[in-house]
């Protein structure tokens, strides 16, 4: 780098000291890629012999071609050489680094951290406190510089103690010993070398040497900025998604080899009574729960949108159920649903007695077995879902209403419209995009119903009494993780995905041009 900047810019024959090592490295990486390709072609029996192996082969063929071309382009000193070399080195560093760290079990080091974290979590409180105080000191009318300094140093000190008490030093020693013990040293060296060459190719000196233009440089910047996100996206989202599609065409128990069965699973779905039952349950659930989670929310939002005092309080209260986790609230409701000592049946009893005392009737209070009666279990899930969802939808509607042009209401006031007319003729039509969004998200959530029946019915099977709370996701879970019918479960997943996708598309078609996807 230093030699590059020291050299006169016009001397094209003058090359920096790293150029020859780079060329050698290019040759080495091209050779390694060829070896890897041959290795994959020769060796069989890699996990899921089909698509992963072919994807790997395709990627390696491309990499070998790229590696070869990179050698040639580097010798010619054109920008393509820099770009191809940088890409290869960056990816090699990431892949080698990842493999080395995973072999050293470093990604699971979190659990060790978790153990130490328990004793030192108090220090985290000090860090947060310092951060908050420094934030507040910065804000007020006169920024308090001294306080800010103190708070900042508290924060740094807390962080230092936190990392030390969590075992930074033993952790580093452990890292070093594993580096030696697990035979990953060659991999680690390759990763570091690739990283170093990527860094060299990234430098201004390399840009000058390879004659990179400004827009070409910008492309490299863009790739680098997107890289962390994009690599993770490919590894943990796009890749698994395609694998899932492939698995759905196979018969696989997760242990032995998968056999390709084509569309058989999808055909079987149509005659699978349990799957059809789960669809029926979810349709009944949606038909009842979605209107009841949306319409009251619209009315509540209209009330909250009036400028009466105390509305912020109510908004916060309505939002609480969507903040508390689903497991916690479901367990609370499980106790409320308890048929002998639960509050719900108690309230039903009291209301019936009150009704009887007013009208002199002799109605017997129903005391249903909310969770274990097969005709009622789904209703209890509906009640819970509505309770959780109403407040969230209210806040969504409220946000939409606050975006409506106030002059419309002023004009309506001049014309003498009453609140109901304003709601009916201004709010509802203007809120159409929001309504579409709310109904769509509620529907998508409803179609993926799993947590509520799973926790309510636990420790009984989540499919509920007489399969009355069997939903597609519950069915998927049972197939994949209890019956080990992984191929079939994937087909259930994709069938559900197609259903969700179709419903979403339908809503946004009907929602007109102002859908979410127009960005």
């Amino acid at each position: 780098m230093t030699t590059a900047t020291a050299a006169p810019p016009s001397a094209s024959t003058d090359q920096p000291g790293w150029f020859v090592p780079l060329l050698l490295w290019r040759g080495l990486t091209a050779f390694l890629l060829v070896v890897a390709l041959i290795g994959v072609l020769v060796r069989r029996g890699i996990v899921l012999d089909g698509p992963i192996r072919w994807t790997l082969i395709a990627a390696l063929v491309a990499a070998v071609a790229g590696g070869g071309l990179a050698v040639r382009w580097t010798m010619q000193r054109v920008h393509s050489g820099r770009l191809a070399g940088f890409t290869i080195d960056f990816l090699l560093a990431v892949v080698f680094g990842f493999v080395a760290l995973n072999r050293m079990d470093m990604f699971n080091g979190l659990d060790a951290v978790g153990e130490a974290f328990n004793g030192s979590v108090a220090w985290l409180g000090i860090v947060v406190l310092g951060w908050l105080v420094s934030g507040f000191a910065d804000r007020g009318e006169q920024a308090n510089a001294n306080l800010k300094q103190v708070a900042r140093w508290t924060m740094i000190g807390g962080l230092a103690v936190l990392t030390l008490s969590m075992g930074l030093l033993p952790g580093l020693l452990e890292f070093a010993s594993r580096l030696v013990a697990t035979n990953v040293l060659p991999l680690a060296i390759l990763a570091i070398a690739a990283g170093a060459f990527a860094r060299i190719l990234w430098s201004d000196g390399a840009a000058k040497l390879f004659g990179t233009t400004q827009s070409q440089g910008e492309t490299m910047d863009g790739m680098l900025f997107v890289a962390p996100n994009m690599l993770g996206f490919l590894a943990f989202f796009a890749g698994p998604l395609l694998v899932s599609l492939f698995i759905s065409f196979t018969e696989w128990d997760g242990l032995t080899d998968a056999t390709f069965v084509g569309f058989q699973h999808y055909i079987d779905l149509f005659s699978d009574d349990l799957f059809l039952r789960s669809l029926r349950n979810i349709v009944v659930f949606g038909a009842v729960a979605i209107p009841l989670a949306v319409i009251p929310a619209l009315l509540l939002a209209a009330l909250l949108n009036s400028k009466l005092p105390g509305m912020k309080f109510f908004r916060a209260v309505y939002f609480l159920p969507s903040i508390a986790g689903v497991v916690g609230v479901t367990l609370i409701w499980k106790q409320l649903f308890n048929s002998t000592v639960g509050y719900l049946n108690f309230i039903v009893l009291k209301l019936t007695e009150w009704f009887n005392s007013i009208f002199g009737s002799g109605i017997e209070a129903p005391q249903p077995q909310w969770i274990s009666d097969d005709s009622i279990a789904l209703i209890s899930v509906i009640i819970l879902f509505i309770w959780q969802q109403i407040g969230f939808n209210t806040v969504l509607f409220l946000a939409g209403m606050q975006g409506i042009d106030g002059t419309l209401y002023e004009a309506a006031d001049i014309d003498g419209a009453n609140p109901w007319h304003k709601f009916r003729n201004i709010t509802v039509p203007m809120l159409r995009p929001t309504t579409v969004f709310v109904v769509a998200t509620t529907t998508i959530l409803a179609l993926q119903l799993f947590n509520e029946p799973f926790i309510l019915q636990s420790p009984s099977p989540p499919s509920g009494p007489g399969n009355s709370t069997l939903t597609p996701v519950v069915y998927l879970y049972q197939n994949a993780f209890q019956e080990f019918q992984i191929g079939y479960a994937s087909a259930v997943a994709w069938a559900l995905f197609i259903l969700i996708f179709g419903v979403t598309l339908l809503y946004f078609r009907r929602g007109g041009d102002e859908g979410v996807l127009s960005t």
Partner: protein
Amino acid sequence: MTATSTPPNVEEQARRAHRAKIIRNIIGRGGAYAVLIGFATAMLFPFLFMVASALKTPEDTFRYPPKIFPRTPATAQVDGADVELYSVEVPGEGLTTLYLAEQGVQAGLFAQLDDVETTVAWPLQLASDTGQTTTLEGETLPVYSVQLGTETVDLALVRNTAVGRFVAQDDPSVETFAVVRTAERAESIDPQWQNFNEIIELRDFDRSLTNTILVTILVVGGTLFTSITGGYAFSRVRFAGRDKIFVAYIGSIMIPFVVLIIPLFRLMVSLGWVNTLGSLVWPFVFNAYGTFLMRQFFVSIPKDLEEAAFIDGAKRWKILWTIFVPLSWPAIATLATFMFLYAWNSFIWPLVSINGANSEDFVLTIALQTLGGQAGEGPNLIFAAIVLSVIIPFTVFVLAQRYFVENVATSGIK
């Protein structure tokens, strides 16, 4: 409108209309508040029930009819000894709180001479045999003269029994007798704070709590990092295929997570990450929604700001962290709150990937589900655990309510 010829009538009409409007307003507001309070009660009651139940004794949670406040049987100290307090009917004074002074007092169950159903258990000491007999429902019973408080009544002795002697704490002369087994214990409101200690010590629950904190911090931090860099690239750096990739990103937001569960779990198996906290963190720090959110915010930042920095020779990396990030606090806080809730409350993925019996790997949702599925623990401890699991989200919500609401508002509408 019609009465231009009769001005006083118009005035009267206007006044009446005005008054009617005020009344309508009051009724309207009252109705609005009634509806709002009704729903607020429905939303809050389960949480009130949660806190109250967390402070109860196990028996108290199974009480019927249910009572909201935690109660325990009351005791008191009389002459240095612990005594049990009861709520007993004292003749002439109604229900009174008395202590149980003596048990097993020999007594008889006496019935009214004309009605065998109305009985009283009273010590034989305070009754004397009159020598007469009476016949009730075909049985011949001796008649006693019983001293009930101040009055003396003739009653038939049905059978012998035992009663307790109940005495007032402040006035030993106030005493009465009742069958101990059926007497109602007096209760006092007595929150069981030690429930929280018990649940924390039970099966690594503290470990679940800190694991959850750790996972949440890493997911939020990691997502912010990848979303900020990705969002910056998609909004400010021009490169080939950028917009097509971005459309693919947005499209991926629509794909439900359930499609990914199986392949992601297989991936965790082949990487050896099953039953580790890493499986809860690494797959979730790359987030299309976050990238989308940050990109939309960065697009709205004026270009002049960064161009000035470019002229000064600053690199993109530095521009991103010194110009864009400080300007984007609202979007960052919004994304952080969203990811916080997601990581803290996620259930189905930990259920799949942390499926071992080793509770050291548990996060709160799994610990709660395990607790809730076991009949062994009393509901009071489960409720204490729920309180601990919601206390941090609720605190964060109170501190950063604006961003939660903002997140909802921006998640789909704009």
